């Protein structure tokens, strides 16, 4: 029991017992002395002496206790508190006051000061090291995200059942024909299933994580053809099939160009073969006649076939020329970047280059063009023709531009230039010849004299004036690797709330009656693995096909002119249905929004049969029915601020509802409502509340 008392109290009790014992000893001594003397009464002097002795003893003990309390007990307690504060509360300053108080405790205070100082230093060093490592990891993560966001192919990471756990910006471009991809969505909603399943089954069956499979697949809508490579991840957890990495490249244009060339080639043979064969026959007959004048119809036939042949060759040749550069992977390249690269190349060779001309976007293979001009300048320098050059870029009428490499010095003969063009461009470009560069770009090069200067000219077939350099596209990678090891439960009712995907949504309407009013805006956000995925947002105005009453415009700010050109409810509803596929729908006062959507199910050809949660009812479960459950009241209670400009916009209210929902989930869990089924069972007790709100 004494263990629970403080040190000072225990010492106080000890000294009190000591004083009491001393007094009792004096009393006992006096009593023994009286018995020995056989005195019938106690002499007053003895009583006085005993009292004085008792007071003196009590006084002495009290004095000693006081000194002990001040210099030992209190000092030890103070020292102990100070050590605890340094251990648990992170206080860092030295034990100065405490050490002064504990000056009679020998080496205890300096020893305690040394221990706490070492502790603080160790802790600071550890914190610094953790912070440094955290910063390094964050920087690496950020670099990796940037890298993956910028790779020019779509990169996707999927679970074994094809749910998306990672995608980059290019994947959004490639797959986003209808609905943009989203975390925990099924890849097979975007791609035709056959090649993906086939490749996965083959790779997973092989069980070799180093094995990759090339595949060709089409988007679900069939609009794009994609070439890709799949690699199955190493198994991370027993019982969960490994996911896979899929890289995809859009080859629709390549295939189309190839198909177009094949078709052209087939047409060439078809159109040339017939008149050529006919011509041979006609000329053969004509040769056997004595006088061609006797067969005017044969001459006419011959001219006719020759005309057809000529026309076919000319037309087909022009189409071939036009198609030539389509096949090549030419990309839009800023002339400034191109010329800068060339300048660097020439400087490295000890040559100087000035550039002039407007900033254009050229459709070229930048590497080949730079290699071409650098090679030519070096060739001219080798000949002693010039070492200083000017590259002039000029727009042409029509879609093209002209590049001119100019120098002060002897002109180049076309014969010599044509002779050089068949040479390789240099060691760095392998067998690539200057002529091949011209062929790639379906162009030619020739010497010219421009304003007294010599030049070599190369037209560029496709160029346009560059606008302001666009800000870099904020491409983001979106991921949640926990999805790879997420246990999936077939029954929604038995699924933990954290494992469900939610789409929180809100609608704005022309009025409050689902029977007569129409939706003018739908917004939704996705919550995956207990987090809002910021990049996965649905937000569209809807043309209600009827005037929007001014009273409604006053609420949500949407007027008739804003919905001109917006999709109607059939298109917007279908897109939203796709966006919400496989998710639990969440809304604040869900029956209102659901009634507007469900009334359109027949027109949309889809059913909004998703599981549904209502934040009004969840608020009632958590805070009780007597509280206010409006969105403003709920968000205010949860410390969520809706920016004024976003209030009563579908997206503003949606984000606020989503944030409120995310805060309500742990509160539901604390009440033991862990699964969707448990929440719904509890919510049903509050059905009356919702009826009241809708009434």
């Amino acid at each position: 029991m004494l263990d629970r008392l403080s040190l000072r109290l225990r010492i106080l009790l000890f000294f009190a017992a000591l004083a009491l014992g001393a007094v009792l000893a004096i009393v006992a001594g006096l009593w023994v002395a009286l018995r020995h003397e056989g005195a019938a009464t106690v002499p007053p002097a003895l009583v006085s002496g005993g009292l004085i002795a008792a007071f003196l003893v009590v006084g002495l003990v009290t004095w000693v206790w006081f000194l002990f309390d001040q210099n030992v007990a209190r000092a030890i307690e103070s020292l102990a508190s100070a050590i605890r504060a340094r251990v648990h509360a992170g206080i860092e300053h030295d034990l100065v006051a405490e050490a002064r108080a504990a000056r009679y405790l020998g080496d205890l205070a300096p020893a305690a000061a040394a221990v706490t100082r070492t502790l603080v230093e160790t802790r600071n060093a550890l914190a610094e090291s953790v912070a440094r490592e955290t910063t390094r990891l964050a920087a690496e993560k950020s670099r990796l995200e940037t890298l993956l966001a910028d790779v020019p192919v779509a990169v996707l990471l999927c679970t074994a059942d094809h749910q998306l756990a990672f995608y980059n910006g290019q994947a959004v471009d490639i797959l986003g024909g209808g609905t943009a991809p989203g975390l925990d969505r099924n890849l097979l909603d975007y791609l035709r299933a056959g090649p993906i399943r086939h490749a996965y089954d083959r790779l997973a069956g092989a069980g070799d994580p180093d094995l990759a499979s090339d595949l060709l697949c089409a988007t679900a809508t069939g609009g794009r053809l994609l070439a890709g490579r799949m690699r199955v991840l190493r198994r991370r957890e027993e019982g969960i099939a490994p996911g896979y990495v899929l890289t995809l490249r859009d080859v629709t244009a390549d295939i189309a160009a190839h198909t177009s060339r094949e078709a052209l080639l087939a047409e060439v043979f078809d159109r040339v073969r017939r008149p050529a064969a006919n011509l041979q026959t006609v000329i053969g007959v004509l040769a056997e006649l004595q006088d061609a004048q006797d067969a005017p119809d044969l001459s006419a036939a011959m001219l006719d076939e020759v005309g057809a042949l000529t026309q076919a060759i000319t037309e087909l040749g022009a189409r071939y020329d036009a198609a030539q550069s389509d096949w090549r992977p030419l990309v839009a390249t800023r002339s400034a970047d191109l010329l800068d690269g060339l300048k660097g190349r020439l400087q490295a060779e000890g040559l100087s280059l000035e550039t002039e001309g407007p900033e254009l976007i050229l459709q070229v293979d930048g590497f080949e063009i730079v290699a071409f001009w650098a090679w030519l300048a070096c060739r001219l320098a080798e000949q002693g023709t010039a070492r200083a050059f000017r590259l002039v870029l000029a727009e042409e009428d029509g879609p093209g531009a002209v590049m001119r490499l100019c120098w002060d010095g002897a002109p180049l003969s076309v014969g010599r230039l044509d002779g050089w063009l068949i040479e390789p461009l240099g060691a760095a470009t392998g067998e690539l010849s200057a002529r091949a560069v011209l062929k790639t770009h379906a162009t030619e090069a020739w010497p010219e004299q421009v304003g007294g200067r010599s030049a070599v000219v190369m037209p560029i077939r496709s160029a346009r004036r560059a606008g302001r350099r666009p800000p870099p596209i904020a491409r983001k990678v979106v991921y949640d690797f926990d999805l790879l090891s997420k246990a999936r439960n077939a029954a929604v009712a038995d699924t933990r709330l954290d494992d469900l995907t939610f789409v929180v949504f809100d609608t704005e309407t022309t009025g409050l009656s689902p029977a007569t009013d129409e939706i003018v805006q739908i917004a939704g956000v996705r919550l995956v693995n207990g987090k809002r995925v910021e990049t996965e947002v649905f937000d569209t105005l809807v043309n209600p096909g009827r005037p929007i009453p001014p009273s409604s415009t006053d609420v949500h700010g949407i007027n008739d002119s804003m919905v001109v050109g917006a999709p109607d409810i059939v298109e917007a509803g279908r897109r939203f249905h796709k966006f919400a596929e496989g998710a639990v729908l969440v809304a604040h006062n869900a029956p209102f929004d659901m009634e507007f959507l469900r009334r359109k199910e027949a027109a949309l050809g889809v059913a909004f049969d998703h599981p549904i949660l209502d934040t009004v009812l969840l608020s009632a479960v958590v805070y009780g029915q007597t509280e206010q459950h409006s969105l403003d009241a709920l968000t205010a209670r949860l410390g969520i601020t809706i920016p004024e400009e976003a209030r009563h916009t579908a997206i503003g209210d949606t984000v606020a509802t989503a944030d409120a929902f995310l805060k309500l989930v742990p509160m539901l869990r604390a009440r033991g409502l862990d699964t969707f089924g448990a929440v719904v069972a509890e919510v049903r007790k509050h059905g009356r509340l919702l009826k009241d709100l809708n009434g």
Partner: protein
Amino acid sequence: MAEAAERKRILVVEDEDNIAVALDYLMTREGYEQSRIATGAGAVDLIRQTRPDLVLLDVMLPEVSGYEICQNVRLDPALSGVKILMMTARGSAMERRKGLAMGADGFISKPFELKALRAEVRRILAGEPAVTTSDAPGEARHA
């Protein structure tokens, strides 16, 4: 038909015999005085010696290309009166541009219609500018 007093002299620089024969007939029938050289190597020297009014110049020649002949003729001020009509079996827009940049007065793609060739020869000899830049078969192009 041109009058004998106006007989213009045309030099055909063409390595393919069949088309050279045909051009010979055609130019003669048109009343021009026609001669031919089959290689590019001696073409410029022949032009200097004979000073033809017009050179029908094939692009693809052995040894020296039509472009080079054209450029050398244009670099010689003494030959400034010699007109050049270039002919090629390819006829891409870029080749035409290159030919015209080398100083050709016209450029015609093979195969060509005789009517178009006749018209182009007449136009160049008359010193008239080109009137069209369409892509019609065999039509001459001008910068």
